[in-house]
């Protein structure tokens, strides 16, 4: 873990010195939050819409913005730069575990994802969203978002390692949009049409979104929270294993 932490610190320095790559991860999700609320808030007024638990539609939409913020995967594009510039080979030639090589960037993604998530939630609170689950709920919400940032970044790193191409890695990131829209993004799952409900049920991002949403709209409801954490734990373990295997076979 010491080696992973050293590499994580380096990735954080890299992010700090490239604010141009970090700033859009804050503003684009906020833009979508404003636009989605502007388009649908009148259809779902807080006073008469049960699934909003007395809050405005912004509270229901906040998880989508958090997920979007955590799904830019810029770390993978930095990895492509390392590969193209030869620094990745320098790291591969060092006696560090291949797991540390993968985890370094993912640790940095967790830190960045947590920071961005906290900022978005705080901005949401300033504009009237309240967290029904309190301070612990805030911590869990930020942690869940940060862990998803690492999972998605792990997926994009996998594409980067396989293709060694910035264009392919960037395009691979677009898978997030079908994953986001095949969820109960605008209404709860039981209000979706049957085909959409089936698709959402098979989409792991649904459980993450529902866990986040419960933390915002309800008091701590563990039956909805744990599936979200289970999902990031399982997908995170899969991504880590695939990344390590790819680096071990990297020629």
């Amino acid at each position, binding site marked *: 873990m010491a080696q992973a932490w050293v*590499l994580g610190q*380096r990735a954080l320095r890299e992010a700090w010195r490239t604010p141009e790559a970090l700033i859009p991860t804050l503003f684009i999700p906020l833009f979508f939050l404003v636009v989605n609320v502007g388009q649908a808030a009148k259809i779902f007024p807080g006073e008469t819409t049960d699934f909003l638990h007395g809050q405005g539609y912004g509270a229901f939409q906040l998880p989508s913005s958090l997920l979007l913020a955590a799904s830019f995967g810029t770390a993978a594009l930095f990895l492509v730069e390392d590969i193209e510039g*030869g620094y990745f*080979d*320098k790291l591969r030639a060092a*006696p560090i575990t291949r797991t540390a090589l993968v985890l370094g960037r993912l640790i940095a993604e967790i830190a960045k994802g947590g920071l961005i998530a906290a900022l978005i939630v705080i901005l949401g609170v300033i504009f009237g969203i309240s967290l029904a689950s309190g301070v612990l709920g805030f911590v869990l919400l930020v942690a869940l978002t940060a862990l998803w940032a690492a999972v998605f970044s792990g997926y994009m790193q996998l594409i980067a390692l396989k293709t060694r191409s910035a264009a392919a890695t960037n395009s691979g990131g677009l898978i997030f949009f079908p994953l986001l829209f095949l969820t109960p993004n605008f209404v709860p799952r039981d209000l979706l049409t049957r085909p959409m409900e089936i698709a959402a049920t098979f989409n792991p991002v649904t459980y993450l979104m529902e866990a986040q949403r419960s933390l915002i709209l309800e008091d701590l409801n563990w039956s909805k929270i744990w599936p979200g954490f289970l999902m990031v734990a399982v997908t995170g373990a899969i991504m880590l294993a695939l990344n390590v295997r790819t680096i071990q076979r990297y*020629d």
Partner: protein
Amino acid sequence: MSSPNSAAIDAEGLVKHYDDVEAVRGVDLRVRSGEIFGFLGPNGAGKSTTVRMLTTLLTITAGRAEVAGVDVAREPDEARKRIGVALQEAGLDPRQTGRELLVLQGRLFGFTTAQAQDRAKGLLELVELEDAADRLIKGYSGGMKRRLDLASALVHEPDVLFLDEPTTGLDPASRLTIWDEMRRINERGTTVFLTTQYLEEADQLCDRLAIIDDGVIVREGTPSDLKAELRERQGLDRDPTLDDVFLDATGRTRSRVAGDVQEVK
């Protein structure tokens, strides 16, 4: 550190295939501890592929290789502790400072932060980059990047240093600086494995050299022995240059060598 009589690199029948392409077709190499060994060849001859196999960066299709007494395929991490690598493109992170890069490299090799900082300071002095140490690498010149890359390969005081075309693209002054540093490093006991396209460089620096062409070694020996062999074999009335040896070994002619006669295209 290996003893002077031991082999720093011992490779037998090294082969590398990429799908249908045979990049390296059975290379045998024995590099003595403490020498500067030159590895020459035209573009695409298999130089970099061989280096990448010896430095654990490429899997080996067939054959075996030991560097500093360690089998690179069986114990890659142990081998990595004993080798330093500066590849064709200076592998640096442009968003770090020179000092940060060296400290990071030290930490990856198990140094404490204080030890890594001390080592970085010493290396920055060695490659004369103290003044630029705290500037971002993206602002360094090509020569400065090469020197920093060299320093980063030396952080852990490796037994064997692999330098893959370390002076390609450098101006003559920077090239001479790198040569001086290579000699200094070698004088401290580090074996240097140098791949280069510059024959003058090999002639100036190398104790022995091998020429690879089309994935196989076609000549091996000291520069003077190789020249003497060519003179005798061809009955020349003048001393041949290393260019002549190279052209003879690779079946190329001067008319096929574009531009600077020192650089084989």
